């Protein structure tokens, strides 16, 4: 990452992927693998060994809701757009390195995937500022981005 660049989590409704409705300034990606004991079942097998039988992940993000007049990439954003999140719609998420004015220019993609909203918290705390927190449960595979330097 170059000087001045940030990483952001971008989320859009999958049905309208070109419109980004949230850009989290803080995010965490929690992944976990479900395992099954495959240890040697005799007196020599004291160290547990595992076999992965499934994987899952979720993403939590938080940030400020952008104003309806803000255009991040190609779409208008605002509180109303969360209505589509709540409607059990599939969401696209992207983790991107960004730069430029207000960090609106994507430089490269770290990873992307899809998920369903499982928790949304909207706090109207200050004049003009609204904070949101959400959790997206992963749906399908995580796809690493392509490194242009490879």
């Amino acid at each position: 990452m170059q000087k001045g660049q940030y990483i952001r989590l971008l989320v859009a409704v999958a049905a309208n992927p070109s419109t980004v409705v949230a850009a989290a300034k803080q995010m965490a990606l929690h992944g976990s693998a479900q395992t099954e004991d495959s240890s040697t079942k005799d007196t020599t097998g004291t160290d547990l060994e595992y076999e992965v039988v499934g994987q899952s992940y979720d993403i939590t993000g938080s940030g400020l809701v952008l104003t309806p007049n803000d255009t991040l990439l190609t779409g208008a954003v605002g509180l109303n757009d969360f209505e589509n999140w709540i409607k059990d719609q599939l969401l696209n998420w992207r983790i991107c390195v960004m730069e430029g004015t207000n960090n609106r220019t994507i430089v490269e993609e770290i990873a992307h995937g899809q998920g369903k909203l499982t928790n949304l918290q909207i706090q109207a705390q200050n004049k003009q500022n609204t904070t949101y927190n959400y959790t997206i449960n992963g749906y399908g595979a995580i796809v690493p981005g392509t490194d242009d330097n490879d």
Partner: protein
Amino acid sequence: MFTEETITSTQWSAQVDTYQSDTTALRSIISTFIAAQAVPVGWDQTAGAQNRVKQNANFKRNGNALLNDFTMSFNDRETVAVSLQFQGTGGLS
């Protein structure tokens, strides 16, 4: 009276917290998680330039472990706080 027990199995895990600014390394972490296969994990004393040279200390250990959970916090400019949790599989040598 104290209970005395016989150990029938052992397990181990390891956690690493670090900062990262190399996006290729971040992609590698994600790919390691997706692969769902145990990778070599070990610890040792290090020295030299940027502490990259292993010292073969008495307490060094090597094993294989699954990257089972990771957290990336992207709140910092130019750097990412990364926490990796490994679940050991098999013994430590």
